[in-house]
């Protein structure tokens, strides 16, 4: 084993969550090492849909709704910073977004859900939304299908190019002096308060802080650091069309046009464990909904498709935690690495740099599951 290499922080996981935090820490002036897997891995960061999305997050969990909104608000600054740091255009566009409803029942359910979100938001950060009927919606979105009954709209939503974001975060991180180590699955670790040692890629890394952002890998890794990260894989499939001339001025939850011109159609939910095989029947369902929403899509070629695994906490709400046993160890677990990148880089990273999570993240602790399981 080689001589230990000292850092001020070790981040485990080079996906969107890990690299946003790592960039945030590097930006705070910390000498940071980012440990990543190799070319083939379960990479949610290479499989997501690219929405910066507030309107569907945090129903029944006001703290999560608020955190998501903070992130959406922080996003323009993050995009600007990345442009300044490495000249990257991550294609951030936040014109607001809609969720299409294809039946009266879907419309009624959506309306209830939005009303609940508004109630739970309270007055400090009010949640503005509108239910939009088909006639008005047709003015906003061209070529809408006759099946579409209406939509919910919130002004906070938008989208980015998630792959450009990943690339930009990596470039910004290394540009700020961060050290990126690929093929570095954690082999062993020794934890002590504010004194961590991680063995990976045949090297030894030491730091007073360690951040676990290894996605599904966190479940096994967290207990080593006196933490718990009850996350499971949840499969989602996405379809991509050929590039077309600009059509849509805003994203929807199931159809969005990328900055390159492709339409992304998504996405499905399946509880199938660690399985990333593609299922034609599921792909057909996604296609059907997209064609019902916008009939012209039937004529477009599907040129790509994929399935990937979301990192899904037990209750669907992100988990942020710090170790009581080993202060200085943190976890971040969520399935919204794109939406929450703003918060991760600009809010969470400074807390970790300071050595302590802010009280507003208390409800995100995995201890909530102990309470619930005991009850």
């Amino acid at each position, binding site marked *: 084993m080689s001589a230990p290499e000292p850092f001020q922080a070790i981040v485990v996981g080079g996906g969107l969550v890990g690299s946003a935090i790592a960039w945030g820490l590097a930006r705070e002036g910390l000498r940071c090492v980012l440990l990543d897997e190799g*070319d083939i891995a379960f990479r949610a960061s*290479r499989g997501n849909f690219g929405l910066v999305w507030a309107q569907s997050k945090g129903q029944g969990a006001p703290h999560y709704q608020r955190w998501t909104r903070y992130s959406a608000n922080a996003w323009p600054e993050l995009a600007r910073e990345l442009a300044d740091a490495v000249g990257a255009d991550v294609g951030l566009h936040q014109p607001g977004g809609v969720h299409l409803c294809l039946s009266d029942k879907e419309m009624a359910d959506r309306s209830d859900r939005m009303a609940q979100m508004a109630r739970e938001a309270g007055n400090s950060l009010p949640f503005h939304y509108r239910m939009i009927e088909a006639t008005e919606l047709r003015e906003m979105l061209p070529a809408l299908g006759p099946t579409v009954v209406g939509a919910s709209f919130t002004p906070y939503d938008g989208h980015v190019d998630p792959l450009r974001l990943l690339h930009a975060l990596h470039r910004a991180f290394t540009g700020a002096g961060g050290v990126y180590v690929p*093929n570095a699955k954690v082999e062993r670790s020794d934890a002590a308060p504010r004194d961590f040692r991680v063995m990976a890629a045949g090297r030894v890394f030491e730091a007073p802080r360690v951040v676990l952002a290894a996605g599904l890998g966190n479940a096994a890794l967290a207990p080593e650091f006196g933490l718990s990260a009850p996350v499971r894989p949840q499969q989602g499939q996405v379809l991509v069309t050929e590039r077309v001339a600009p059509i849509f001025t805003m994203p929807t939850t199931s159809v969005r046009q990328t900055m390159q011109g492709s339409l992304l159609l998504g996405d499905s939910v399946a509880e199938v464990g660690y399985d990333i095989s593609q299922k034609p029947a599921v792909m057909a369902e996604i296609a059907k909904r*997209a064609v019902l929403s916008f009939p012209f899509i039937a*004529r477009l070629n599907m040129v790509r498709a994929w399935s990937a695994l979301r990192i899904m906490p037990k209750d669907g709400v992100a988990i942020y935690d710090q170790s009581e046993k080993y202060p200085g160890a943190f976890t971040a677990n969520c399935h919204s690495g794109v939406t929450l990148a703003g918060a991760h880089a600009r809010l969470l990273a400074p807390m970790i740099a300071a050595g302590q999570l802010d009280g507003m993240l208390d409800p995100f602790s995995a201890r909530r599951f102990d309470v619930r399981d005991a009850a």
Partner: protein
Amino acid sequence: MSFDLAVIGAGPAGMAAAVEARGLGLSVLVVDEQAAPGGQVFRAVEAAHGDTALGAEYSAGLGLVESFRRCGATYRPGTTLWHLDPDSGELSLTPGGPAQARRVLLATGAQERPVPIPGWTLPGAMGMGAAQIMLKTAGAVPSGRVVLAGQGPLLWLLAAQLKRAGAPPALILETTPKGRLGAAFRAGGWFSGRRLLLKGLGLLREAWGIPVVRAVTGLRAEGEGRVQRVLWDGGSADCDTLLLHEGVVPATHVPLALGLQHAWDQAQQCWRPVVDEYGASSHDRVAVAGDGAGIGGWQAALAMGQLAALDAAHRLGRLTLDGLAQRAAPVRRMRDGALAARPFLDALYAPSAAVLAPVADEVVVCRCEEVTAGQVRAAARLGAQGPNQAKAFLRSGMGACQGRMCGATVARLIAETRGVAPETVSPLRPRAPYKPLTLGQLAGL
């Protein structure tokens, strides 16, 4: 529709497998993208066998096509496989509905190895295989000043065919380095493969009279909106059509998408699926035969197709182990004979480092997304360990061809930049759809 055996591809391997399997009483589905059987080597042979420019070996393919047409397999030409579930045996096909198979044989053949030189995206630069397909499917020949650049058996075959067709190339730029012939003789196979090599000598003789520059390096194409000149270290020539060729490689798109185990072929510098004597892959429902399992030419492909069919019959209980061994023995001898000259050819025509990984940073390696070698190198320096991460960073391999044209080059550039052996860099992992289909077709499922 449910079948004992589904064969993907109606080239020599696929046709031979279908004929053999039908002879053993199996129900057989053959799916092929082309309008007529033959694969690339016997492309359009039913229509073009009378064209003397193409030669006697080509016309000989007619017999195989005729026996395939008669064999009683369900033949779906003009049909694309866009997804295969190897566990359930369901094939998603377009146009038309899905099919079910107890055993699947991938006989998807080869593709020309991409030749990413500066200017290879200009109109007028094409593969030599493309020019040969023009000859086979349309009887057509390139006009104006035609330059053949590269190396391999196809170069001399095409030169001879174009000459016979009354359109000899103006110039041949052969990239085989000096001293390769000696290495090829040392690699062996020249004696047992002498019949094939004599045929090659015949082609060389036929091409006599066409100017040849040997041991060419630094190849590049230039022109305003199309190829007008070809340049190399120490020379240049006017050029209207530049035909490139550096050998062929297995078409691994579907085998890789299925997650079949692959091995690095050191001699041919490419990945190929791991298969046993009968073409059985690492998945117990799937076999691979023909050039798709490793380049061996059409005669070896034909034998491998037969072996895979015999194995399918045995696995499905239509042939005893003894019967399998008995029938396989002569076919194996045929295959081994057809492969005898490979070590010689592989050593003679080994692609140069500059073909596998272009030297100049500005060369476009991903033709679809227009990603350059320099961008790939930068991604590798940033930490991308292979073509899959590079795809996320750069979109290389994300366009319409899904990495068929750039996957190997991107992986090679990364290996070079990282200073690791090419076989340690994982290949691009394709996903379905293997070929595009419309969302309307998909929604109609």
